[in-house]
């Protein structure tokens, strides 16, 4: 009997592609919600004070929210500092690019390399080698956010793909 290569991919590949797509969509949606939250003072200027306070409190455990270090647009500042905003924007860009293109997932060493600019910026601006720059903080945050999101996405995809393969077996 002649063995011909099947045109249809194995069911596990379809399942893993579907799982991966679903994970990416969910991650993008979550990132959007999170980013909309800290952009709330800029996007929805007419919200009530309790909502404002609640949202500010949501972000306060993970950011110092110093107004001088937050990005200001039209006299309204974001609820997180420039560095944190950069990390989240970087993660969102990574989520969108991962959905649209086939990009290789970073290795552990790239995660550490991406952390270095952010780490040195924190250290140098804290000890006064140079003064705090929102652009630099945001830029280093974007690099770190981009890489860390891809790293995270890879782990989550592996976890769910393995689970779905085990279920199919």
């Amino acid at each position, binding site marked *: 009997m002649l063995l011909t290569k099947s045109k249809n991919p194995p069911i596990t590949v379809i399942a893993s592609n579907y799982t991966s797509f679903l994970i990416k969509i969910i991650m993008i949606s979550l990132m959007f919600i999170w980013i909309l939250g800290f952009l709330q003072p800029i996007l929805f*200027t*007419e*919200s*009530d*004070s*309790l*909502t*404002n*306070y*609640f949202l*500010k*409190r*949501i*972000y*306060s*455990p*993970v*950011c*110092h929210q*110093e107004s001088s270090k937050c990005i200001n647009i039209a006299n309204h500042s974001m609820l997180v*500092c420039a*560095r*944190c905003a950069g*990390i989240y924007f970087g993660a969102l860009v990574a989520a969108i690019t991962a959905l649209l293109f086939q990009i290789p997932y970073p290795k*552990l060493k790239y*995660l550490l390399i991406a952390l270095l600019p952010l780490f040195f910026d*924190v250290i140098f601006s*804290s000890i006064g080698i140079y003064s705090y720059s929102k652009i630099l903080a945001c830029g280093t945050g974007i690099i770190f956010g981009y890489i*860390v999101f891809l*790293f*995270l996405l*890879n*782990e*989550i995809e*592996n*976890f769910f793909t393995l689970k779905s393969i085990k279920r199919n077996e």
Partner: protein
Amino acid sequence: MNKKYLPALVCGFGGAVLTTIPGMENIACCLLTPVAAGASIFLYKKSQPDLLKIGTGTGVILGLLTAIFAALFASCFEIIITYITKTSDLVTSIPQAESVVKDMNLGPAAKESIELLKRMVADIQSNGFSILYAFLITVTNLITYSIFGILGGVIATAILNKKNINSV
């Protein structure tokens, strides 16, 4: 005690203590909770030398547990500090919020919310404690810490597993 709870409890407590140090948030920013979650996974791995690979699910659970402990301890510390000092960030931010509501004429819902905030401030200034404020900070801490704890747990598990594979 279950081997999962102890590292989570220790690291959660450590993370919560660090959040109370003034200026710490300036340096650690959003990395404090993920690092605490990572430390808890590291301790869990140390407590079980025979374990070659930690499952991502275990990492998520450990990260979440650390985050829950950290959130509860951080809320307790904040409530205690508010009780002692009879002030909080809410007390300092209320005049600004009030002026925004007045300037923008945001309607009855906004006025109601500012009244609620004022009641909380009055309770804090007179008794040092407001049940609504305590509830609000605990809920917000639980939400944020949990998200970052889970993320920290996933990343730390991947890092530790990769390190383990390299060393074997």
